[in-house]
C-alpha cells in the first residue's frame, strides 16, 4: 500500500489526559523560553557573561542522558507491544529492565543538576542575581521538578511491568508514562541550546 494511503491512528498513544498535560506544559515552558530569548536582547552582555558561569559539559551530558533514557522507554514500550502469549513473562522482564535503566539515567540527571545548582549557590548566585539567572534557575528548577516526577512515574511503571501488569492489549498506562518522559526530553532539547549554547 502506498505510504500516503496508510490509515492514521485516530488517537495519540496513552491516556488522553496526558496530552492535555503535555499541551499545558508546552505552553508554560514556551512562554518562559520566549521570555528568556527576548529578555536577552535587552542586556546582551550580561546574558553572555553570566552564561560563561554555566557548565556546558554537564548540560551536554544531561542531554545525552535524557535522550538515551527516552530511547530506553521506547524499547520498553516496543517490547510489551510486541509480546506474545508464549513470551509475555520474558518480555515483561526485559521491558522492566529497560525502564529501570531509564530511571537510573533520570536519577543521574538529577544528581548532576544538583551538583550544578550547588556550585552556583556556593558562588552566591540566586534567582535575584540578575535576569539571566532568574530565567536559568526558573527554567532548570521547573524542569528538575518534572524530571523528579518522571523518575517516580518510571519507578511505578518498572514495578508494574515487572509484575506483568501490562500486556500487548493493555499497555495504556505504560504509554502514558512514556509520553510524560518524552515531554521532559523534548523540553530539554530546546532548553539546552537556548540557555547553554546560543550566545
Amino acid at each position, binding site marked *: 500500500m502506498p505510504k500516503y494511503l496508510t490509515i492514521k491512528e485516530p488517537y495519540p498513544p496513552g491516556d488522553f489526559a496526558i496530552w492535555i498535560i503535555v499541551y499545558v506544559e*508546552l505552553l508554560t515552558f514556551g512562554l518562559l523560553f520566549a521570555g528568556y530569548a527576548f529578555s536577552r536582547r535587552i542586556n546582551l552582555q550580561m546574558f553572555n557573561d553570566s552564561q560563561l558561569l554555566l557548565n556546558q559539559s554537564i548540560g551536554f551530558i544531561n542531554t545525552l542522558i535524557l535522550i538515551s533514557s527516552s530511547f530506553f522507554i521506547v524499547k520498553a514500550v516496543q517490547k510489551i507491544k510486541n509480546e506474545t502469549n508464549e513470551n509475555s513473562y520474558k518480555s515483561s522482564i526485559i521491558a522492566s529492565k529497560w525502564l529501570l535503566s531509564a530511571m537510573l539515567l533520570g536519577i543521574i540527571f538529577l544528581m548532576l543538576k544538583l551538583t550544578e545548582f550547588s556550585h552556583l549557590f556556593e558562588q552566591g548566585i540566586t534567582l535575584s542575581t540578575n535576569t539571566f539567572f532568574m530565567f536559568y534557575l526558573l527554567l532548570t528548577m521547573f524542569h528538575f521538578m518534572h524530571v523528579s516526577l518522571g523518575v517516580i512515574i518510571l519507578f511505578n511503571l518498572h514495578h508494574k511491568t515487572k509484575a506483568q501488569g501490562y500486556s500487548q492489549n493493555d499497555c495504556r498506562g505504560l504509554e502514558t508514562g512514556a509520553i510524560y518522559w518524552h515531554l521532559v526530553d523534548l523540553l530539554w*532539547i530546546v532548553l539546552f541550546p537556548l540557555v547553554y549554547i546560543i550566545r
Partner: protein
Amino acid sequence: MKKIAERVWIVLILLSIFAFLLGYLKLVSTFVVGVLVLSTFLKGQLIIDYFMDLKEVRLKYRIIPTLWLILILLCITIAYYLPVVKN
C-alpha cells in the same frame, strides 16, 4: 524500518554532540545560530514523531507539538537576529 528507534537515537546523539561542539569550541556565530536552531527543530521533530509515536496519528494531534516547536524556535531566532536594544 525495524531498527528505526535505534537510528533516531543515534541521530539525536550526533546532533547533540554537534551542538555541544559548536558551543565548546566557541564557534557560535550569527550564521551558526541558524544551523543550531534547525538542528534543534530536527531533534524535536524526531522525538515528536518517533519517541512520542505521533507519526502515524491523525494530523490534528501531531500538529500541536510540531507547531509549538516551530513557534518557539521562530521566537528564539527572531529575538536573536533582531537588533540589540541599547540601554
